[in-house]
């Protein structure tokens, strides 16, 4: 880690949407994920049973809305992107790290900085 707390991940141009890279940030393993043109970073350790959550599938979150008595629940993909742990499917909002079914469960998130075409994770000071 550099003095300013930034950990280099790699050139921005090497990431397609849905790609991830794993880096060491201090003692922690962090996954950097690109989704919808944005970069996100989360601790690569699932709060369920320690699975490699950042290596899972990246999708938009499927949500449902009650539209009226007797109507089917309207289901659609929202703008939120989620990553799902490949072990048992626990899924987390990429932005907040919160479990999509219970926001009390949370994966720590990190800031991502892109400078001069290089992606960095901000590991804090």
């Amino acid at each position, binding site marked *: 880690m550099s003095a300013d707390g930034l950990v280099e991940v790699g050139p921005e141009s090497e990431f397609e949407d849905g790609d991830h890279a794993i880096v060491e940030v201090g003692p922690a393993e962090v996954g950097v994920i690109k989704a919808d043109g944005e970069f996100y970073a989360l601790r690569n350790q699932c709060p*369920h049973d320690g699975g490699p959550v950042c290596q899972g599938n990246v999708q938009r*979150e*499927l*949500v*449902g*809305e*009650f539209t009226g*008595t*007797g*109507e*089917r*629940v309207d*289901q659609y993909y929202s703008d939120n992107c989620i990553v799902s742990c490949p072990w*048992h*499917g*626990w*899924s987390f909002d990429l932005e907040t790290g919160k*479990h*999509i*079914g*219970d*926001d009390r*469960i949370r994966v720590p998130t990190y800031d991502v900085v892109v400078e001069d075409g290089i992606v960095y994770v901000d590991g804090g000071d």
Partner: protein
Amino acid sequence: MIDAAEERVIDCDWHYQDSFTEVAEYMPEPWRTKYKDSFWEETGVTQALSSFFPTSTGDRQNYGKVLREHSNYPDEPEDPERVREGMDFLDIDVSLQISHLILATGGINADDERIQAFTRGYIEYMLEEVLDPDEGIYGLAPIPYGDIDASLEVLERVEDEETFVGACFVTAGASPPLGNRKYDPIYERCEQMDFPVVYHTGGSGLDEYVRAGYQEMIETHTLGFLESNMSQIVSVACQGVPEKYPDLDIVFMESGVTYIPGLVSRLDEEYLKRPEEAPLLDTRPSEYITDFYFGTQPLEISARNDLLELCFDMIGTDRLLYASDYPHWDFDSPSVINDLPMLDDDDRRAILSGNAEEVFGV
């Protein structure tokens, strides 16, 4: 410790042993004549009953071991006076009557109006001859939920009758299960009327519980009643009924309490792995289910105290409603609640009457 006999006690589950003999008088035609012509007087009500009520394993009277009067399905028409006698016997101030015959309707899948006709007759009979708020005798209106229009008519009929204080859904037999959107109009109307929905487990078809061929009542009574309630709890919660109708009071009756922590724990475990399959929920199903109310009977007082205590903690003593199930064979008297060592007196009072006052306004 309080003395239950000195306290106000509201019994949320009393089984009025209605028979066709009385109710048929109040049924609409042609059902009144059809039933009155069914020879029950010659062959005995039990005979006519069994053509309506699917049989179930074994003898509820424990093959002669349970000796109380009027505790079985009646061979003779029920007498409204017996409700008063029973309430005195148990020291109960207020009872909510449910129809004992309607419990059997889970076994009827035909679209032939039997349930609707019976329900209409039952309501008129109860209003005319049995229910009496001055005596503390209130009713729950049976909902023929297989027919939405008929169900809405029932609610319309009882809306201005202060003696009916809730809607009763028999949990056995509902197909699709009771979280389905098909039933939304009933829930919407109940919410609007401030009319609690009471899901009551049912005994029909117990012999064929999941797999046919059980031999004894000990087997089917343990499993079947539980399964009927559990399947509806899962459906109602996962399909988001409490999200759709947040002011609807939901009550589950007659399966004790120890199954609830196990069921919600298992359901939460599933939910965290696939929450998008219950998209109306904002958080774990257990958070919704522990907002439901639960009748206590038959309370598992033989369970380890620490287990029972844990169950009460998880469900919340503000969610438990004393229920006797009288005069059925396995009734609980108020002392079953009163004597529980893990409760304080406020909890006891809440379960014996306070919670029910809030839910049913009695």
